[in-house]
């Protein structure tokens, strides 16, 4: 037991230096990157939030959601509508975006958490597409397929650098809260539900209730991602809610490793930057992405970080 504790501490020390290194890199990024790549970095951070929210359901709770982008879009549309139509305060709009996504998550989640496996996935997909079509067709309220343009942030956040720091801080705070959440007693119960829901129910846990809480947290977090992205991009469009968008966090998690906390972030960074880079010389991005996913599934089962973790654990247990 003592030995285990020491080992834990050593690996944490190693992690801490990595973390500090990344933090420094993030904070000096605007001085190094061109404006184009700074924009891509912003996108990667926002999409990583979406991927984290998705992985709360997939990696930790054990349910595959195919409608996570719906909450992302809802957060974005709430901000866009409040800012352009009602000239609402920027910060209050942010909060409203999170609340609307969480509230709709509560309603949709109420039905979804009653189902398991593929049925859960299909229902999240169906609800996601339902919301997409409502927004797509409701022309005089949402702008239909035109979306909403002219969603400006306040003056002091208008420069890309300022907004980048805003996104970075929101990202870091959310990631920290989420990290605490998955390591809390509630997080432990979440992992237990994933591993063996029958056993967990016979410990006195009301599975549907705990899954609903998780679902709402994930929806609110996805809403936050959408809410901070839209003022940066100055516009929002219906495809933000579409199932294709919902597929992105799925792929990011599989790429980076759904069994790890940082996996989906890594996956999303690879996808976003690779996408930006590849688009410079070809439009066949989906083909390249598909190949990449295939390579990972066959050569690195468990995703990049998941595979690395498994190797590391294997080496450590052999060594002792």
């Amino acid at each position: 037991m003592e030995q285990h504790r020491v080992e834990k501490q050593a690996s944490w020390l190693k992690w801490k230096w990595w973390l500090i290194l990344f933090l420094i890199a993030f904070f000096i990024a605007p001085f190094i990157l061109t404006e184009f790549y700074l924009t891509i970095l912003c996108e990667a951070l926002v999409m990583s939030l979406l991927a984290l929210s998705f992985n709360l359901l997939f990696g930790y709770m054990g349910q595959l959601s195919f409608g996570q982008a719906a909450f992302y879009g809802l957060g974005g549309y709430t901000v866009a509508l409040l800012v352009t139509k009602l000239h609402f305060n920027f910060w209050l709009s942010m909060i409203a975006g999170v609340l609307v996504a969480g509230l709709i998550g509560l309603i949709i989640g109420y039905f979804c958490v009653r189902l398991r496996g593929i049925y859960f996935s299909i229902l999240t997909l169906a609800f996601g597409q339902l919301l997409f079509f409502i927004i797509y067709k409701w022309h005089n309220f949402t702008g239909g397929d035109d979306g909403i343009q002219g969603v400006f942030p306040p003056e002091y956040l208008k420069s890309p650098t300022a907004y980048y720091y805003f996104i970075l801080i929101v990202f870091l705070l959310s990631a920290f809260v989420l990290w605490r959440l998955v390591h809390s007693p509630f997080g432990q119960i979440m992992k237990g539900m994933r591993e063996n829901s029958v056993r967990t129910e016979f410990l006195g846990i009301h599975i549907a209730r705990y899954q609903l809480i998780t679902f709402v947290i994930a929806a609110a977090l996805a809403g936050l991602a959408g809410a901070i992205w839209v003022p940066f991009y100055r516009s929002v469009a219906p495809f933000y809610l579409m199932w294709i968008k919902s597929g992105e966090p799925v792929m990011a998690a599989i790429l980076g490793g759904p069994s790890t906390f940082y996996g989906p972030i890594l996956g999303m960074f690879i996808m976003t930057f690779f996408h930006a880079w590849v688009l410079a010389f070809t439009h066949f991005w989906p083909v390249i992405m598909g190949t990449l996913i295939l390579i990972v599934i066959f050569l690195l089962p468990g995703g990049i970080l998941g595979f690395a973790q498994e190797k590391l654990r294997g080496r450590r247990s052999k060594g002792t």
Partner: protein
Amino acid sequence: MAFLQTQAVVKDFGKLRAVNSVTLDIRKGDVHAIIGPNGAGKSTYFNLITGYHRIDSGKVLFQDEEITKLPSYRRCKLGITRSFQITSIYPKLTVYEGVLMAILAHRKASLHFFSSAKKYFKEDVWRLLEDVGLEDQANAQGDSISHGDKKRLELAITLGTEPELLLLDEPTCGMSPEETETTITLINKLSQVRGLTILFTEHDMGVVFGIAKRISVLHQGTLIADGDPEAVRASEEVQKVYLGGAA
């Protein structure tokens, strides 16, 4: 006073009547065995008590409170916990985490969102691990330990909810003779030291007659005998359908 009471409980699977109007009282503090040949309805009867299956007719009372329609998680909160015939543990969690799950759930700490789970109930987890003899395996992953250890882990998990009534579905199934011996000692200790009421099913007659204070015999879903071990051993009907005259 009956601690747990089933009144004419019935369960049908299609045309098959798995449990046929079983009325039985379990007394507080007893170690009570349910025996019967394969397909006698023992596991189904267990599932009716713990809420895993819905009851078709009849009533279940726990401490004079009707629990017939309560979902299983509510029954667990009242103090009824079970183990499964096919061992039910957390394969990818460590042994320690599995036991911690149970204590978190029972002590109402499962809705703490922001503090580290590692800091909770350390002493209680270690004590339970020592009770079942798994303290050396605390950091092993659930699916990496031996079959006997998995059974003991499941026992530790069920004990983590501090039950008043513990239902064990074949607790020594698939164990080596030594492991069986340890488990029997453990069950005896639990009933004596903690005053637990234990209801269990078992195929191994050595185990049954070794620890049970009372034995009930099911045959094709019907209760055909109920009493202390001597009475059950002497019953002609039991010998005919079950013990095959060998006892």
